[in-house]
């Protein structure tokens, strides 16, 4: 009689082997790619910077106690209405440090890490020991302005920190719109087929022919008050065609699979089959163009701002900073270097993530890698 050496003396039952799901498997493979993971960390870091931008650079307290109440004036950077009007009533004039002390000696405040504003120049008498920001070619990087200032004396670091919000928002919102449209159109075309497919495929081809930049420029001329949301919407509604075509192809392929037949046999509705059963299986390859699309959207927004067609001023976008550097390109290198680097790294990061996703989800690439 032989005894299995591996069998445990207490005769506990062996753990059943749990097979990893598709997403788990993808994540595992994605994690093995150092570049892609670094890019993901970088994007997460940007997300944190964007989220906490008013706490990193600003001239409004993150939190303060004033006349016995707690306030969060830095929220005004997100939305002007969120900055309590008491400070306007009390004629703070957006100058908090001295006014807080003067108007309520018992007040206290937690300040952002860097006392600089993304929308205006910090003046001489605002913060003890900190001189006013230099302007023009004198605004090179220094102790108070880590990335220098632009020609008007507005701090570049503060603009870049707050510009992160714009860069990420543009990427996510516009591609969110594009993904929503693309997935729905592609799914309908691929699953329903027939005249719906013919019609939607022609629509896709039609939209592909519209140059988004020209459309954006035309809309800017028409819209009375252009905001960053308009730009995101236009980028979104013109960038969904690639996603739609890929979705259509995936749906064409997957709708012949047994699990779809099974779902049909069980009496699932078309909508349920499309978006409950097929879509989750088709999603992985669709994520790839979405990721690349985010990078492209950031580039488009930066390009528009660089050309002066971005959101209305003051607009602390990276592209706007690049544009302001163009005026004195030989003197103000910091206006080109830092925002240029930020755009480059962010776009690179999204592309690396997209590539990583592609490799992690595409079995053919996986084999090639081995």
């Amino acid at each position: 009689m032989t005894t299995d050496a591996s069998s445990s003396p207490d005769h506990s039952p062996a753990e059943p082997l749990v097979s990893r799901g598709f997403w788990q498997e993808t994540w595992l493979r994605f994690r093995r790619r150092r570049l892609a993971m670094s890019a993901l960390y970088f994007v997460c870091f940007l997300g944190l910077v964007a989220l906490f931008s008013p706490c990193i650079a600003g001239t409004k307290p993150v939190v303060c106690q004033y006349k016995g109440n707690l306030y969060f004036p830095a929220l005004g950077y997100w939305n002007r209405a969120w900055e309590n009007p008491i400070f306007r009533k009390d004629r703070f004039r957006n100058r908090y440090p001295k006014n807080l002390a003067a108007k309520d000696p018992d007040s206290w405040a937690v300040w952002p890490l860097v006392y600089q504003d993304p929308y205006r120049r910090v003046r001489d008498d605002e913060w003890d020991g900190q001189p006013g920001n230099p302007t023009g070619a004198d605004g090179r990087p220094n102790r108070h302005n880590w990335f220098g200032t632009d020609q008007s004396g507005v701090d570049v670091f503060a603009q870049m920190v707050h510009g992160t919000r714009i860069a990420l928002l543009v990427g996510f919102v516009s591609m969110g719109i594009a993904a929503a449209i693309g997935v729905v159109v592609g799914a309908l075309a691929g699953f329903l087929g027939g005249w719906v497919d013919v019609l939607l495929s022609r629509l896709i081809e039609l939209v592909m022919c519209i140059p988004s930049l020209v459309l954006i420029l035309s809309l800017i001329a028409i819209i009375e008050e252009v905001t960053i949301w308009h730009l995101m919407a236009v980028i979104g509604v013109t960038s969904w065609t690639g996603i739609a075509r890929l979705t259509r192809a995936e749906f064409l392929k997957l709708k012949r699979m047994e699990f779809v037949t099974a779902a049909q046999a069980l009496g699932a509705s078309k909508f349920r089959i499309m978006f409950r059963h097929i879509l989750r299986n088709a999603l992985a390859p669709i994520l790839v163009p979405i990721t690349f699309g985010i990078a492209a959207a950031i580039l488009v927004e930066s390009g528009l701002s660089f050309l002066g067609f971005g959101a209305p001023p003051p607009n602390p976008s990276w592209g706007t900073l690049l544009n302001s550097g163009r005026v004195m390109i030989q003197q103000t290198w910091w206006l080109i270097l830092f925002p240029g680097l930020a755009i480059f790294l962010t776009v690179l990061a999204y592309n690396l993530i997209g590539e990583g996703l592609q490799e992690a989800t595409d079995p053919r690439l996986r084999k090639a890698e081995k």
Partner: protein
Amino acid sequence: MQLGKPTRTTLALIAWLALLGTACSSKQSKTERPDGQASSEDPLAETSEDEVLLEPYAAPTLETLDAQAEWVDQDVLDSMELLRERQQQEGLPSIAVAKALAMRNTSTESNRDMRLALGRLPENDSQVDYNAALTRHLAVDVKSTNPLMASSAAEFEVNSLTSFGLFGFDWKFRPFASTATVVSWQKSKDGMIDKVVMRDDLVWSDGQPITAHDIVFSFQTIMNPKVPVPAVRQGTDQLRWVEAYDDHTVVFFHREALATNTWNINFPIIPKHIYEKSIADDPTLQNSDYHVQQENHPISGGPYKIVRRERGQTVLLERREDFYLHQGKPVRPKPHFKTIRFRVVTDSNTALLALKKGDLEETQLNAEQWTAQTNDDEFYKRNTKISDTEWVSYHFCWNCKSVFFSDRRVRQAMSHAFDHEELLKKLCYDLYEPCTGTFHRQSWMYPKQNVPQPYHQDLDKAEDLLAQAGWEDSNGDGILDKQVAGRRQDFRFTILCGQTPRSIKICTLLKESLDQIGIICSVKPTEFTVLQQVSRDHKFHATFGGWGTGADPSTSKNIFATGENRNYGQYSNRRVDDLFYQGEREFDRDKRAEIYGQIHNQLWEDQPYTWLFYRNAFYGFNKRLRGYNFSPRGPYSYSPGFDAIWVPAAN
């Protein structure tokens, strides 16, 4: 030889400086431009084709005129001689040319010394290199080479060298007839008639003589409602009639004896023999094949002719030998350059790089360039830079009919709220002076009493004035509001500006200033032609812009008098209207100065504009150039202006 140049003097226009750099109208009128971009004025847009602008007039015979008019001789002068006399009176410059060229322009004193030394005229012809070729800068392309169609600074600049004119004005805006084209100029004692006898040695570039009939034809063309002349009708339309009594005698009949009549007789001249037959077929003067050909190869009456024109790139002029020579003999001063090439460079940074490289030999510099980009060896290797006072002012224009700015106290509050010091010291690098109203403080019409004081930021006062006008934060949302027609109206408005960085920065500073007192201001950079149209239609709350100066204060009438076509802000004040009326009818200069001084003060009180700063002239010149002198309209738009610039002969 001040043909062309600012010789054309109709009173009219003002070009709006807002967005692109520098534009100026030909005439003595004010100039408008959006920071360097071409302005395309269209005062005739509302003129219907059936409208008759000119009623027939039975002009009296010349004998009758001579018997009745009691002629008073007017000045017929050589502008170069005028400048020479001025330089003689000034005495020799304190430094030599070589030293001026070696110096760097770092202070007011060095600027003055360099300007005086390098602005000297040649002592004699042997000093001048008449074979010199010059490359000049155009910030925008020339859309038309027809002087009647000129509307942008670029077009006026080119036309000033190629077109024919009878009159000019000097750096003090004193009008005179030019010796280059006029034998005599007389005015009737009652001021209703001007008689000019032209020289008989004038020819167009195709060899045809320039006669008094060309003057009459040009006048009638300008007054032809079917011809869409963009900018030159205003002022000319004050004339009752123009009559040619022979080939050289032309008489201008005025509708009324006005102090401004002298300016109204100066309008662009086109060759009758070229356009006489074609104008009926194509009153636009631009669309037919024949007129397109004329556009590309125009007949010139001035010292230079256009020999090549590449749209958007270059306009090449060549000196006309038949301009200064008549039957082989010199009859006028020889123009200083053999060829002049205008290069179109729309981006000011590219223009500066081209200047440094020697591809351009003159360009206007902006404040950033003057302060930071023209101090190194690379710039001074080939160039030097000169600055002087220029009567160009910038402002915020408030729409006085809008719900926000109809109350004078609100407009005053805007002026109190704006951070003028930040603007002047930081955005304008301390290069500009604060502007205190529509007339320049050095001008003769500037008020001598109750001199306006510049505004300084006073947010408390601004808030108090707004409260008096009913704007308060009634609902505690941090934004001022007011009950208007039973509804709560938040104080949110949009300011339109040009697309240049400076315009945007200045408007952003306004936004920052107003945000502090609970006013939401959105900045909307707008393309120039759209901005113009919106301004003309009064469809705006506020705009940022600027005006160059007119040669006569009456040019401000069409900006501030009720219902005038450039009164974009729809400002209206009966007293101001009356004073403009009086000013045109007052011939005594001191009394006129008093009248316009009152207008100035009334406007300052009413603040239809928040006046911001005077922008001086800043120019970069190649070191081989000499003879540049400045007027309140810059170095070119006066007599002699460009004619005085020369290049020294090799030795």
